């Protein structure tokens, strides 16, 4: 708002300008008519008056264009800045925040609520200024005729303001309800379209249409509630004006009768009062705009004022080049009420390799997510190179970690752009190398457009295994000192797996590597393996040690071997 103060000021002045030109026209007209009435006294010919009126009209038109564009553009400009702030804010928010919000809701706020705010700051401000100018002009003219009558005429206004204030509160509430309904509707659409494959596979089209109908119903109802209140303002505003006229009729009438006021004055007074009727009704419309804008602004505020639980340290420690030593000290973590990680203590020397296994939901992904600090970790529990993670800047640690999420997300760009995502401007060779290590080279070679193949939203036009490997290549290209692979080969066949694993072993070098896996083959060559169960480490040691221990790890191993044996028979 502040940034556009100049624009608003300029716009207001221009608006005064147009109105002055506008007022000049009836005045010239009056002179012209008087001139025609008494041609004798003529200063100008009718033709000259006509030219003057035309000139004033053109002047008014030109200034009008500037006043409107200045003000409305200012509204657009603020919308632009707000949208940028909102997106900037979203970029700083953490996982916890996004898991509590629906995509459709955020979309709707950034589109529809922002529109309401813009309407308020563009048309709203324009109309307020216009109304204000008209009111001031009319009031000046009115007081010149009779100050007393003027006071009488505006007497009903306080009552109106009182009623409108009452209405405003409910206007705010219903507007908010309407915007919420629109958010729900948007969410339905977003989810439905994203899940098109499931909807089709399970023939849920009719069910989806039904729930969409309900969302539309909710929105329609809320909109009508708003329309009702808005419509209700109309009679209130109109009767306020009428009451004023009524009072004038009596008080002014009596004054005319008693000779205090001339009849001409009375008629003129009524004429000017009529000038106020339309702006008054307009005022109702503006109030509606204001309330709607305020309700929407409040909803945008929920994003702008959201505070991420995950915060940058105030005095970040710079550990220099990160070597990749990772240490968990009695780490306990919970997403909500229940603890998902319990008392994890683990030291991973720089350059060593750790395998993590465990049943579904045992907390493997949760554990590895702590390293790039995707979720807030308690102080003094996670250390990288001996520095508490909470005291390291996010950018620093994230630059050092190459993370392959369990479910990769690809952008709707080309394969090359996706692979080079962590290192914009990476050379062709680097990209090709990463692609080769990730075992994707063969697939890319088969695509007609090679690395330039567009992958569709979330990578829909790739196969499951291809998507997974793009996401591996993306992490590799970063040349991170800590590489985190969360079940990275779940969607590839044994052949490709073998190929990738052998290429990776050449790549690992000095890097610290954490691999989560359900199958044991990717864990070959790990210095230590930990077994998680219900968020706690229940076994820990090298492959041989764990086999000797004869616990859960040995059981998984036996199972895999057993299957093989059975088949061999």
């Amino acid at each position, binding site marked *: 708002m502040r940034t556009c103060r100049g624009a608003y000021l300029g716009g207001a002045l221009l608006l005064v300008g147009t109105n002055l030109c506008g007022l000049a*026209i009836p005045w010239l007209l009056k002179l012209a*008519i008087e001139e025609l009435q008494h041609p004798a006294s003529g200063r100008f010919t009718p033709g000259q008056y*006509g030219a003057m009126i035309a000139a004033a*009209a*053109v002047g008014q038109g030109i200034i009008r*264009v500037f006043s409107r*564009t200045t003000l409305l*553009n200012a509204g657009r*400009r603020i919308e632009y800045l707000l949208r*940028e702030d909102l997106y900037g804010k979203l*970029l700083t928010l953490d996982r916890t925040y996004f898991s509590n919000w*629906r995509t459709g809701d955020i979309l709707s706020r950034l*589109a529809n609520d922002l*529109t309401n705010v813009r309407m308020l700051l563009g048309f709203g401000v324009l109309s307020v200024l216009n109304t204000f100018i008209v009111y001031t002009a009319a009031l000046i003219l009115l007081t010149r005729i009779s100050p007393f009558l003027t006071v009488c005429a505006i007497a009903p206004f306080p009552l109106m303001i009182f009623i409108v204030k009452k209405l405003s509160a409910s206007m705010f509430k219903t507007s908010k309800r309407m915007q919420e309904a629109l958010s729900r*509707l948007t969410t339905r*659409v*977003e989810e439905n379209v*994203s899940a098109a494959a499931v909807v089709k*596979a*399970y023939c849920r089209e009719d069910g989806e249409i039904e729930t969409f109908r309900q969302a*539309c119903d909710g929105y*329609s109802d809320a909109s*009508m509630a708003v329309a*009702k209140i808005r419509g209700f303002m109309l009679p209130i*505003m*109109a009767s306020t004006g009428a009451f004023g*006229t*009524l009072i004038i*009729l009596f008080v*002014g*009438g009596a004054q005319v*009768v008693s000779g205090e006021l001339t*009849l001409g004055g009375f*008629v003129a007074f009524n004429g000017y009062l009529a000038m106020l009727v339309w702006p008054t009704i307009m005022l109702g419309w503006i109030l509606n705009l204001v309330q709607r804008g305020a309700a929407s602004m409040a909803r945008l505020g929920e994003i702008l004022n959201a505070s991420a639980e995950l915060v940058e340290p105030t005095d970040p420690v710079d550990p220099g080049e990160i070597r990749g030593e990772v240490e968990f000290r009695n780490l306990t973590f919970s997403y909500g*009420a229940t603890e998902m990680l319990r008392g994890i203590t683990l030291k991973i020397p720089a350059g060593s390799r750790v395998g993590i296994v465990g*049943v579904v939901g045992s907390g493997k*992904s949760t554990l590895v997510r702590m390293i790039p600090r995707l979720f807030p970790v308690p102080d003094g529990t996670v250390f990288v190179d001996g520095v508490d993670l909470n005291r390291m800047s996010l*950018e620093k640690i994230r630059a050092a970690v190459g*993370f392959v999420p*369990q479910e990769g*997300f690809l952008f*709707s*760009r080309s394969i090359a752009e996706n692979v080079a*995502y*962590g290192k*914009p401007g990476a050379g062709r060779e680097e990209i090709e190398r990463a692609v080769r290590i990730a075992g994707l080279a063969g697939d890319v070679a088969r695509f007609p457009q090679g690395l330039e193949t*567009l992958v*569709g939203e979330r990578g829909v*036009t790739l*196969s499951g295994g*291809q998507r997974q*490997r793009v996401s591996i290549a993306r992490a590799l290209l*970063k040349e991170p000192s800590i590489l985190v692979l969360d079940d990275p080969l779940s969607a590839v*066949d044994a*052949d490709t797996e073998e190929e990738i694993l052998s290429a990776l072993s050449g790549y690992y070098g000095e890097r610290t590597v954490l691999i989560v896996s*359900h199958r044991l083959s990717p864990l070959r060559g790990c210095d230590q393996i930990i077994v998680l169960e219900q968020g706690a480490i229940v076994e820990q040691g090298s492959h041989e040690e764990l086999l000797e221990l004869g616990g859960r790890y040995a059981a*998984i191993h036996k*199972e*895999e071997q057993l299957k093989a044996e059975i*088949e061999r028979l």
Partner: protein
Amino acid sequence: MHFGGIYEDEIVGKMYDRRLMGRFFPYLLPYRRLIAAALVLLPFVAAAKLVQPWILKLAIDDHITKGVMAGLPSLAALFLGVILAESLLMFAQVYLLQYVGQKVMYDIRVQLFSHIQRLSARFFDRTPVGSLVSRLTSDIEVLGEMFAAGIVTVVGDVLVLAGIVGIMLFMNVKLSLVTFSVLPFLIWTAFAFRKWMRAAFRQVRARQSNLSSFLTESIGGMAVVQLFNRERDEAREFRRLNTEYMESNLPVITWDAALYAVVETLSSVAVALIIWYGGGEIVRGTLSFGALVAFIQYIERFFSPIRDLSAKYSVMQGAMASLERIFTLLDNQALEPALLAPAATGAGKEKGVSCQTAPDEAGSSICFNDIWFAYSEDAFVLKDFSLQMRRGEKVALVGETGGGKTTVTRLLSRLYDVNRGSITVDGADIREIPLKTLRKRIGVVLQDPYLFSGTVAYNISLGDPEALKRVEKAAAVVGADRLIRELPNGFEEEVRERGVNFSAGERQLISFARAVAFDPDILVLDEATASVDTASERLIQRGLEGLMHGRTTLVVAHRLSTIRDADRIVVIHHGEKMEEGTHAELMDAKGVYYRLYQLQFKD
């Protein structure tokens, strides 16, 4: 970095206004009574407006001038009554029209949504989610603005205008013609502006859609953005789209302001013309002074509806640009193959040949007969692929990633149609089986599990009442019941968007349970246990043993342990069938399968 991404929404095809309005009109028809009612109110509102000055005149002439205060209160009451009546009528009118507007928007929204449900998988492959969201929300909201601006009362404005034109002509033909001489210019402006305005609005709508697509994707991939420290780049890209959007709005504002100013200026120019011309007439004595003054007042009245119309005009241009987008999507014929006309699909050209089914066997038999398939042009993903599955048989598809396994399952559900060859189920070409019937028989566990926001029970049943009854049993079959019962709210536990509050394996189990709950006679498991640990997998296999009996099952798996009991194993390589046989046969053959197997169990 350049973003040739798919969120570059094209500016959709132009349509002629007449066609556009012609298509829009039928949406109003169901509400013609309400619209008629609103129009009927128009003359009453006008009358109430006209009566007010007349009452004032009475009050002044009969009472105030004469000093008779006696009848004044009743006149005052009348005045008040008229004003209240006017505003109530206006309220009724506004409300009616808003109501119609909401209804029409509702109808269009639901129609558009239903249409989207019928569009093909191909369409969704290339259309960003955000652009569809923006059509179903913002584009339709713009239509709402059109109703709020009172587009229906345009009729009223036009009638008033016609009336005033008539009176003016009746009063003085010459002066009228002088006044109307500014009209051609006005009409020319309106027509010229229409083209520019519409082009500007089209630009606005397309760019709004781009913003929405970008945002949708960005929110979905926020974790990746942050993990890779790409916040600044994404912000820059967003700024680019945001700037484009803002800039596309500026011409709209300028055209709108210009139109407003032109109308305003022309109305004063008309007055100036009359003064100039009428003044001459008066001097020559051919025009009375009173007539001139009266005429000037009518010019005011004449331009007032024109001003209203011009304000509605630009709103309408915006709405038309939105309508173009809406209708273009409605016209999109990228329908599901089954919804196209039979001729277009070539159904029945090639009949299933090699499928014989003994009638007493349970389940369904499935045949893929020499199918060829390409997602785009002739980059064939499946080449001459054939596969016969007897009723109740369990067949496994294995092979290199990207080999076309998922594609085979998609073709069976008819998400895409084969280019050549045919697929039959129980001897009937699937192109001749109603799509719903076909899909209801097939339960698919998709390779990428998708969970909806809702509850666990909802995610397993998807709201289907039949499936709802089997939720717990289905969860037990896949061994997810223990896990679900441990949740604070059990089956009623909240699932957030895309299931983010569940682990990948849990999501997969729930989506597996979904397929079981729908009790299909053909089961398609696409990597259904890829993210599940060995122990859970064993549980699932045990649970499925009973279930799969009598069901034809197609299993895709990389983990060969999961398919050891398959009746037959098919190896796909680059879209071609390489090997086929039982586990033992393939091991003996010492081919691709043998090697894969050795690799997996070496150690």
